[in-house]
């Protein structure tokens, strides 16, 4: 019962946060300067009718919201327009129907663009995260077990260095190294691969994935290792670890049954929050390696002032962060019995 109440409370909060982001996201892009029509105004070849046609195509001829024609520059408009005929309500209505508008640049629906990009990002981040978690946890455990020995200090130095490396710099260095070793340095597939059988294609994608995944793994592995090490050291100094030893558990059993579950708690939070943020954080890696994911889409959209794509991507990232936080909360309640009963 208490567990359900906790769950419903958390889901409710997540819902309200998303609602808030939704509204903020709309006004953010209406305050920013530069719609496509205005950008084209300076082109003397563009006729007035053509500009008007562009504005109508993207719905920019409608007032932003009641009483405001536009937000940048602020232009007070009429207050008795039909509220349902303002940009804000059209935006909300479209969102409810799963529409995010049309890209200024490619004229394609934003939903389609983001959908194909999202899977590429998930593939890259998923592989990178899994590797970073595995390596980080194992190294962290090992370092904590061998605490204050040269193994521990070695692992500490490596992970501190790895954590502090600038992502783009590491990416460029690995790119140089990879190009000298015959690895593909950009994109996701060799052209012409789409007609090949599945296994050949998968192998080709894996080769393309290698360098960006390696970069991602190195950068995040250090963080996970450091957290795992210090959290495990904390737990190992607890009295219940001593009690477990006194009961006759071997070092392995103590680690497996008592230390790990308690030591994983802080790590779960960090991983979940990272997962959300790295949707956007992959911008650097995807740009360096031209990986056609969400991050590259954001980078391109910024350069092109392609606001609908940016707006959609921002919304997606916000939802990813909120959902991953929600998942962290729920996992926490499962892993730590103290959470939901208090």
């Amino acid at each position: 019962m208490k567990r359900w109440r906790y769950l419903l409370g958390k889901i409710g909060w997540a819902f309200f946060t998303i609602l808030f982001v939704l509204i903020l996201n709309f006004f953010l892009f209406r305050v920013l300067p530069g719609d496509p029509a205005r950008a084209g105004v300076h082109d003397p070849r563009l006729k007035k009718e053509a500009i008007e046609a562009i504005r109508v195509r993207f719905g920019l001829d409608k007032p932003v919201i009641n009483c405001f024609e536009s937000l940048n520059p602020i232009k007070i408009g009429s207050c008795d327009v039909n509220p349902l005929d303002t940009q804000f309500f059209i935006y909300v209505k479209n969102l409810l129907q799963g529409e995010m508008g049309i890209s200024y640049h490619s004229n394609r629906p934003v939903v389609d663009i983001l959908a194909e990009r999202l899977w590429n990002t998930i593939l890259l981040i998923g592989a990178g995260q899994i590797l970073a978690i595995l390596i980080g946890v194992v190294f962290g455990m090992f370092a904590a077990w061998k605490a204050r020995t040269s193994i521990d200090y070695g692992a500490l130095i490596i992970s501190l260095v790895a954590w502090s490396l600038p992502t783009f710099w590491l990416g460029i260095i690995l790119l140089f190294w990879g190009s000298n070793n015959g690895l593909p340095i950009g994109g996701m597939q060799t052209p012409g691969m789409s007609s090949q059988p599945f296994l050949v294609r998968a192998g080709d994608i894996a080769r393309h994935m290698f360098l960006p995944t390696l970069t991602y793994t190195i950068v995040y592995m250090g963080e996970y290792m450091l957290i795992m090490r210090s959290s495990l050291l904390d737990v190992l100094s607890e009295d219940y670890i001593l009690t477990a030893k006194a009961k006759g558990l071997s070092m392995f059993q103590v680690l497996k049954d008592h230390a790990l579950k308690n030591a994983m708690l802080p790590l779960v939070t960090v991983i979940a929050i990272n997962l959300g943020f790295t949707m956007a954080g992959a911008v650097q890696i995807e740009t360096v390696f031209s990986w056609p994911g969400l991050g590259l889409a954001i980078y391109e959209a910024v350069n092109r002032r392609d606001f609908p794509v940016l707006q959609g991507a921002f919304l997606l990232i916000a939802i990813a962060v909120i959902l991953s936080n929600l998942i962290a909360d729920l996992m926490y309640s499962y892993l730590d019995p103290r959470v939901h009963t208090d």
Partner: protein
Amino acid sequence: MQDYFLEVQDLKKYFLAGRPSMFNRAVEQVHAVDGVSLQLRRGEVVAIVGESGCGKSTLALTLMGLEEPTDGKIIFESKEITHANEHDRKLLRQRIQMVFQDPYESLNPTQTIGEIVGEPLDVHGLIHSKSERELKVVKALEDAGLKPAETYMHRFPHQLSGGQRQRVVIAGALVLEPHLLIADEPVSMLDVSIRAEILNLLADLRRTRQISIILITHDLGTVGYFADRIAVMYLGRIVEIGPTHEVLTNPQHPYTKALLSVVPVPNPRLRRERVILQGETPNPIHLPSGCRFHPRCPIVVERCKVEDPAYVETGESHQTACWMVGT
């Protein structure tokens, strides 16, 4: 020579103070336990009393085999266990169990009470079926005073009070049916009202199960309660040991006298002269020469500063390490 159940001979445990480095090769040592000898009969309760930092807890951990002794011997059930190997140590764990000081820290917060109490059974392979496990866990919980056991089995430690938690800790130790229980300040973290209950429980266990208990405490008030003998420890060594009644009513060592003089007495009219010790406990790295109590001793003489006192019989099985005893 009596056949003792547990015999500790000149046990020493030194810790390195810091680590050897390029600049400092000779690392100093903390003399946590420095030559403790102790005998225990079956079913006997010995209390080890002393200030914080006198080495009581280190002694307990060393007896448990959780710390490797630096020197000396531990003989348990006529077998030397000082440096037992892993296999023997695991067998010993069934027979020597420990109750830790802080019941808020010594229970894993993610396990249920049933899992905590049942775990030693799984580890030692003492059960063959689920129902057998349940039966033993229930019995241990009820023996530890948690009745009815079923209502506690599926709860988590944070849902219990301090006294209940300490009972869970005791149940977890009892489930293996140990012969020796080492209780390291089992009641110091509990409310005064709960202390007597837990001590009563330990006294009952000793009576019904013939368990020997080493009770470690800094509180002389709780000791008189059920210990057969008292050993007073100071700076890693036992300075006086004897039957409880003897030591409490006729203390010989000046340190014991000082400790006893400050134990609160319920009767306010019963005024006694209090011996307040001067100065701090000396640093266990640089021990004083001669008798280690001499810098704070009210009756110190020249000899104490040079020679370490040997034990003197000051009554039936009552021994004191002091030059001034009997003079």
